[in-house]
């Protein structure tokens, strides 16, 4: 497959796995290449109160240090081979997160919106099925349970194999 970055220049890649909260505005600002980036798309995921359990009050995210960063790097590079991207940023938190806190940020910039939208969705679909993170939900009554993988996430990842550039 030809390297789509040929016309977009060198890819700026930022992969962060961290316990600390992140600043979405700062993440967005550092993605833009002034004058070249015509489009930016991003996704931010938050802790919600309805998961496998009801009345979730917090989650704990476990991961596989080393493999996690490598998997996110591979996913970003796969996206950059499919679309002409200027920058990709993936920030994922670990440890205990309270209800409403941001878990994950994915941002991409490109010359055009279609590539930016598609690459952002592709990265999230791949992250959900390939990056070694595991979520445990904590409820107000003190109970806790590991979240089960969703069949829909696997299907979402598979559609990209069938249709190379669009879901």
């Amino acid at each position: 497959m030809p390297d789509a970055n040929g016309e977009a220049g060198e890819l700026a890649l930022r992969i962060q796995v961290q316990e600390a909260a992140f600043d979405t505005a700062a993440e967005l600002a550092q993605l833009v290449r002034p004058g070249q980036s015509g489009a930016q798309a991003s996704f931010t995921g938050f802790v919600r109160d309805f998961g496998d359990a009801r009345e979730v009050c917090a989650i704990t995210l476990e991961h596989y240090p080393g493999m996690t960063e490598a998997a996110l790097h591979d996913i970003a590079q796969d996206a950059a081979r499919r679309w002409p991207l200027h920058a990709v940023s993936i920030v994922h938190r670990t440890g205990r997160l309270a209800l409403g806190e941001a878990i994950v940020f994915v941002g991409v910039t490109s010359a055009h919106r279609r590539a930016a939208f598609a690459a952002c969705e592709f990265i999230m679909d791949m992250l959900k099925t390939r990056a070694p993170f595991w979520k445990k939900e904590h409820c107000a009554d003190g109970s806790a349970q590991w979240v089960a993988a969703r069949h829909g996430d696997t299907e979402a990842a598979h559609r990209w194999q069938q249709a190379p550039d669009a879901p």
Partner: protein
Amino acid sequence: MKLRILYFASLHETLGCDAETIDPPPNITTLGALRQWLAGRGGPWQVLAERDDLRMARNQKVARPDSRLDDGDEIAFFPPVTGG
């Protein structure tokens, strides 16, 4: 042959173990054979044979049961991922 083995998420809770270093018998040469051998410890370890959704990694890359084992490998067993 020394192997470092890691267990993640619900698996490490079930097993009561998140990491160990082992020296398996010489007839254990593949990842699949290692998994069956570990399951043979019985008790909670049978989960390695019973749960067919478990994933395996060798040196931090997803690997298949027929992957050959080498001295010093880092092996991981884990449930399907649920990040994002």
